[in-house]
């Protein structure tokens, strides 16, 4: 019997997996009705908290005089480290080196030492300026060079190697040395850090529960750290976030401090307290992408094939560990990028400076590592006078399940598809023809010169800290057939929510509009990992898949029993279910299942399989798989002024089988522009006092719409 699509679903469901569905919040965002934390209606008596930063980069606090702050109009309370009832720490790895408020000494310029709470944000900001802080200064260590010389580190040096690098370098026909200074980058999420803490009822144990709306990529960490700060169990703190106005890593570990301050303020005053950093404070007081220096030595044959390599990467981690160890590790994991580097040694230093603690930023150290590796490849091309693309192609990993495929950390690259991707881009982008045209142009043009490069990327997917690769989801079917979806992932614009909703819609064969997407809450999914490491869709999608699949099998079991047919004859079709030779609407089945006391709710869980990395031996499989991409970019520079412009970019990117191609294209394109900003115009400028001088968009320049290359083609592989 052939089943005709029902009138309601002529083309199947709207918004299952692989559909280019618009972002679930797109309409609301365009109408201005999508609520960010600062848009939530404020409760009566809401107070506003502003942190007060130290005026010097390093020294002993001789005096912290807050009398004028307390006396200022509108001020209700002032917080110092003495007001912390629990642990004065917001570090993500419990390294006890990130204070909510510093007490006896300051370690970087603008380190928060106090906070003022007032009846309006404007009055709190005015009052904050009245603090009198006297610091007995000690010499500050401000950059990589100074920290390196002073042996100022947050962790011991770490290296791993494959084969014997020293020997290979000595015996190679050719060698080349290269070095690179890689700058940092501010996340510049458009919505700054914000937390809104609301006191709840008193627990019989005597403490007061608290609810925090926090713009964070890591609600569970905020919950646990705030509980530690308050000295209460984790169950006393609920953290919720519907959407962030961008995260990019900047709200992974460093949203916690502001949540902790808001919570402390709320408990101290008994009133709702909001802490929204203004842009200057946000950029000065929170960490950025790590800046690195890199030195490379490479040995190679006449063809430019790498025989051995050695790299020394030094990262400025700032004042504390934060996530720096994992970030620098990821730089190491990506130094090889797409190339087989036998006998490769990668040595890293993790330097401690009197500057704000650097943190996660899209790529998480990977881009810095790749950049160093690519620069080393170019040093080979320069030495041999060969086109860099030729050298790149000769050094690529072998291919699907072919040798050589061993990385410097012992993981085999089994899914390598870049050879075909590069060839495709080389052809579609007319690489060699353009190379010839550019050579001719540059001979003629004295002032403007053009350049062309085709570069691949191989990026490891998974948290390299293996235990973090776990996720939870919660799916409810209500008895009218509507579906509520919740999971531990957070939405920061990347389209995670709509993608996971598409997974659930696919399983139940309903339009994704039947799936209500709800705010991430620690009260619904416990002990989640950050939405990070390019793992959000994989992990939360699978957790939701598991939850929805469990409910679906209960429904199948119920229908088979009720209608006395084999389970194999219960089939979910768009908007309806075929049961034997009959079809009933999806919602009818749900109503029947409810009456039959079938559990219509399920928590799902997922842990990424097969990954394990042993840091002691430097060997293992840190990643479940790799994602690949390649870009062909053309630039022009003005030799009189150094001005530059990206003229054209063609990108192909592998995303596997896309859950939502439109969303993925947006991520690729936006990610490229962010990288363009990092490397071509954004510059963090610290002065010799350790003060960040580029702390707002007036001085820190991210790309505008006119920096978008004139030619910009992005395709999924």
């Amino acid at each position: 019997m052939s089943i005709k699509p029902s009138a309601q679903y002529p083309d199947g469901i709207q918004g299952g997996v692989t559909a280019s569905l618009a972002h679930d919040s797109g309409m609301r965002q365009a109408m201005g009705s999508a609520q960010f934390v600062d848009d939530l209606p404020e409760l009566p008596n809401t107070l506003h908290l502003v942190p007060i930063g130290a005026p010097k980069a390093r020294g002993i606090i001789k005096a912290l005089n807050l009398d004028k702050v307390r006396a200022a109009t509108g001020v209700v309370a002032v917080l110092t480290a003495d007001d912390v009832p629990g642990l004065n720490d917001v570090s993500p790895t419990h390294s006890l080196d990130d204070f909510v408020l510093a007490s006896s000494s300051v370690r970087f310029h603008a380190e928060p030492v106090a906070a003022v709470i007032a009846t309006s944000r404007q009055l709190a900001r005015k009052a904050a300026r009245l603090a009198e802080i006297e610091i007995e200064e000690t010499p500050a260590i401000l950059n990589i060079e100074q920290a390196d010389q002073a042996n100022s580190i947050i962790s011991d040096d770490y290296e791993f190697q494959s084969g014997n690098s020293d020997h290979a370098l000595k015996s190679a026909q050719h060698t080349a040395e290269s070095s690179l200074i890689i700058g940092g980058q501010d996340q510049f999420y458009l919505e700054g850090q914000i937390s809104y803490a609301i006191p709840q009822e008193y627990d019989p144990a005597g403490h007061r529960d608290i609810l925090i709306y926090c713009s964070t990529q890591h609600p569970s960490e905020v919950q646990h750290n705030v509980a530690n700060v308050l000295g209460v169990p984790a169950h006393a703190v609920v953290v919720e976030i519907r959407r962030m106005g961008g995260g990019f890593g900047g709200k992974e570990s460093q949203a916690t401090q502001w949540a902790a301050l808001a919570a402390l303020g709320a408990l101290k005053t008994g009133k709702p307290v909001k802490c929204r950093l203004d842009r200057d404070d946000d950029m000065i007081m929170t960490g950025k992408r790590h800046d690195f220096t890199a030195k490379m030595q490479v040995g190679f044959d006449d063809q430019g094939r790498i025989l051995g390599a050695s790299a020394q990467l030094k990262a400025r981690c700032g004042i504390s560990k934060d996530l720096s160890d994992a970030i620098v590790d990821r730089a190491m994991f990506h130094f090889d990028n797409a190339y087989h580097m036998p006998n490769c040694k990668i040595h890293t230093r993790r330097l401690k400076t009197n500057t704000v603690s650097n943190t996660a930023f899209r790529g998480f150290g990977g881009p810095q590592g790749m950049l160093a590796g690519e620069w080393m490849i170019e040093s080979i091309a320069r030495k041999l006078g060969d086109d860099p693309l030729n050298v790149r192609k000769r050094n690529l990993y072998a291919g699907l399940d072919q040798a050589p495929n061993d990385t410097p950390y012992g993981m085999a690259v089994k899914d390598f598809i870049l050879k075909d991707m590069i060839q495709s881009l080389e052809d579609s982008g007319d690489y060699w023809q353009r190379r010839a045209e550019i050579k001719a142009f540059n001979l003629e043009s004295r002032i403007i010169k053009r350049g062309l490069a085709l570069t691949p990327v191989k990026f490891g997917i998974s948290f390299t800290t293996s235990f973090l690769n776990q996720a939870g989801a919660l799916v409810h079917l209500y008895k009218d057939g509507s579906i509520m979806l919740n999971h531990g992932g957070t939405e920061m614009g990347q389209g995670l929510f709509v993608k996971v909703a598409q997974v659930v819609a696919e399983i139940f064969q309903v339009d994704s509009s039947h799936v209500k997407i709800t705010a991430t809450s620690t009260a619904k999914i416990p002990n989640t990992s950050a939405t990070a490491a390019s793992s959000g869709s994989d992990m939360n999608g699978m957790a939701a898949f598991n939850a929805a699949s469990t409910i679906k099998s209960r429904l199948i079991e119920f229908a088979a029993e009720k209608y006395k047919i084999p389970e194999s004859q219960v089939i979910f079709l768009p908007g309806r279910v075929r049961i034997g030779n009959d079809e009933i609407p999806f919602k009818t089945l749900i109503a029947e299942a409810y009456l039959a006391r079938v559990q219509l709710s399920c928590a799902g869980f997922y842990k990424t399989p097969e990954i394990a990395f042993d840091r002691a031996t430097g060997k293992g499989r840190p990643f479940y798989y790799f994602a690949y991409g390649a870009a062909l970019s053309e630039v022009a520079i003005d030799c009189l002024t150094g001005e530059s412009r990206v003229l054209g970019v063609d990108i192909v990117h592998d995303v596997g089988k896309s859950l939502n191609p439109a969303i993925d294209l947006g991520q690729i394109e936006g990610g490229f522009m962010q990288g363009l900003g990092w490397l071509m115009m954004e510059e963090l400028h610290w002065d010799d006092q350790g003060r960040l001088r580029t702390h707002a968009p007036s001085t820190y320049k991210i790309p505008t719409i006119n920096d978008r290359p004139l030619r910009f083609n992005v395709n999924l592989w």
Partner: protein
Amino acid sequence: MNHRNKIRLLLGFEAIEIVPERHDLTILEYLRLNQGLTGTKEGCAEGDCGACTVIVGELVDGRLIYSPVNACIAFLAGMDGKQILTVEHLSADGLHPVQAAMAQLHATQCGFCTPGFVTSIATLHLNGIKPDQQSLGDALAGNLCRCTGYGPILAAAAQALDSPHGDFWWQQMSAAHDCLTIWAQDQSMLVLDGNPAGIFIKPHCLADALGAMDRHKNATIYAGATDVGLWVSKSCADLPVLIHIGDVKELTDIAMDQDWITMGAGIAYDRALSCLQQEYNSLGHLIRRIGSAQVRGRGTIGGNIANGSPIGDMPPALMALGAEITLQSAKHKRRLALKDFFIEYGKQDRAPNEILTQIHIPRHLKGQLRCYKISKRFDQDITAVLGCFYSEQDQNNIIRKANLCYGGMAGIPAHAIHAQQAMLGQPFSLKTIEHAAHEITKDFKPLSDMRASAEYRTQIAANLLKRFYADTQSEAGLPLLDHPDSLSYFTEISSYLNGDRA
């Protein structure tokens, strides 16, 4: 004199009267905190990210014109007599075409910048403008997006700007025009003096403005608030008396005779652009790179001069042309060369009761002007080095006039005296230019800061002279990277600007 003590404006489509809690309340604070209109976002509170963009309608020569305004730095009281439209108002008649296109074409990701883009694009839509690609980029370069890479936004704008206004919008624009016209006939001066924190005064004529300045020696005068607004939003400054001169009739006139363009000091960059680029193409190009659409619509040439910025961008260009200015107080009026206005860093030749009222720009000059702005980013960036050069040669190619004016090289916008001397009386040749470029080191000892090092500034000041020479050697000029039109390498544009996406 008639005074009013309530702000009167159209919020959306409704005429309302407001007595603000503070005289220096910004539009953004008012919308979010007083009206609960939270669609308009604060991204930076300094007019640089565009997330707070609202649409302001006002009468220009009797016509209702809309412009995008950074609500974070614009004082609410300065909007007296105007219309404010927010992202919420745009869906009053169902989803606005701009909103629909932004959502459908994947132009939103995190969505925080989205309302600002919607209002910026809708401003063009309301004005009935269908810009070419470059003009569209210029209209949107004041809106930062960190997520999308901008492609889908361009596509959404292109789609939306192709769709017509519905009847609703024609009716509303007509009603707004009528309302603002009636208000414009009432010349009463807005005076907010009921608050101990400060006084706000908004005169309509120069006499009232000068009178107010005489009465309030401590007054801060402003027109566009693209600078003064930040004193409040960023620095939390107390400005006890604010006098808004942006709507003073005499300051917004443009007059032309055979030899001079005389511009009211309250002329915003946008209006100056359309007038000046016809006379001096390179100056037009420079103005295109000042601020953003939001800033160019509010910021004024007069403000740019009067605030004494050592950088520019207008003063070095105007000095290169030999511009003059008029200053006026209640009792006195004087005219002086612009270059003499700048005394030293932070000090200008202006008495506290004087207003800069007019800028006089020479016309029909025989020589050549080129303006070069060097900054980290092409759009909406404060200049590291600005070089504005005017030279005039006689029939034997001997240089008779050489004005080499720089911003960012000293405490004030300044002529490069030694370099000019090296050019005068010499043939306009590469040799002369190279000698002049060498002399620059005697003229300036620039600072190192976050925008550029002293070494870079010194070298660039010299190199820009070389560029001036190369640029003036052919009709087409040099290809310049800040000028995509001059880069003919790519006619191709992105795949989905032409077609669809996935």
